[in-house]
């Protein structure tokens, strides 16, 4: 598995997962980069019997959860700054609202709903998070209800 290919196909997905978790554009980019640093470091250890997508999303989710101790491990200035400037400019308020709502959920719920919205199969989400499929389904259902509720409140 070539790192460059993984990077190309997963960068946006991982960024969205981080964005849903933290709802801060710059920080989310840092976190996505950290994820790929770990992916790059651990790629030689990747065994083919596992699903590469599950593997990457596990690393990304775990990295999100470790956010609180990150500041000192990856000094911010050490990460690349040459990003194609394509910032939040034209983002619809609805998109912003969705990400804001998600980032206010309990930490683990943020990850579960982000994976669901990324169209990942529930059985795979179960395997990423380490819970039963039934449990995941129930959680997703509840989170979606909560989000719909918030959108309705926002509307009125």
């Amino acid at each position, binding site marked *: 598995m070539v790192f460059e290919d993984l990077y190309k196909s997963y960068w946006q997905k991982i960024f969205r997962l981080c964005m849903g978790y933290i709802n801060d554009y710059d920080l989310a980019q840092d976190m996505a980069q950290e994820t790929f640093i770990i992916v790059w470091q651990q790629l030689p250890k990747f065994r083919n019997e596992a699903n590469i997508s599950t593997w990457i999303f596990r690393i990304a989710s775990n990295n999100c*959860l470790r956010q609180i101790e990150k500041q000192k491990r990856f000094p911010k200035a050490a990460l690349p700054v040459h990003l194609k400037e394509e910032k939040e400019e034209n983002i619809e308020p609805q*998109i912003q609202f969705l990400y804001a709502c998600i980032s206010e959920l309990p930490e683990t719920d943020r990850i579960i709903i982000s994976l669901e919205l990324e169209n990942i199969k529930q059985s795979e989400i179960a395997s990423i998070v380490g819970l039963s499929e039934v449990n995941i389904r129930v959680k997703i259902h509840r989170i979606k209800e909560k989000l719909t509720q918030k959108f309705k409140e926002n509307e009125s």
Partner: protein
Amino acid sequence: MNPNINFNELWAKQKTGEPDIEDLLSKMNTFKKSNLKKLIITNLLLITTSLFIILIWVYFQPQMITTKIGIIVTILAMAIFVIGYNQSFVLFRKQTNALSTTEYLKDLLAIKAQQEFMQTTMLNLYFILLSAGIGLYMFEYTVRMTAFWGIVAYGITSIWILFNWFYLRPKQIKKQQSKLDEMIGKFEELHEQLTQNESIH
């Protein structure tokens, strides 16, 4: 608004620029190196100090057994510190980020508990051995002095050791501990978030 909001569609609209991959790769290398550098420096520092102490033994040929024991105890203290320090590094390297989140959090909690042990028990052991080592080592040279200077020498050393024990050590432990406690608390909370609903079904 349509009650059936398409969250998936909204979700996918969030896009971001891709950082240049070459840049990312080169930064990764520096990061890896800087971490390793810290480990190597700590090891080298303590190994050189130990070698220096051994050289003293060889050159000055201490006569008393207390001096020799003192030297051995001091080196032992440093060896324990290095081993402990290296082990915590290995633990972090071994850690598998690719575990499922539930397993990962369990793993993290175990590592943090071990870190806590390292930072209290090992640090105490280090201080005790180091103080005992210095005290024993000094004995041979102090008995050659007059009583007055002997007391001054031991007095100053004792003050230094007590300062370390009662001021520097607790300060160091407290600094690391509060950070660790905060993290352990947070990880426990996260683990609970995942497991508490498991029993609903």
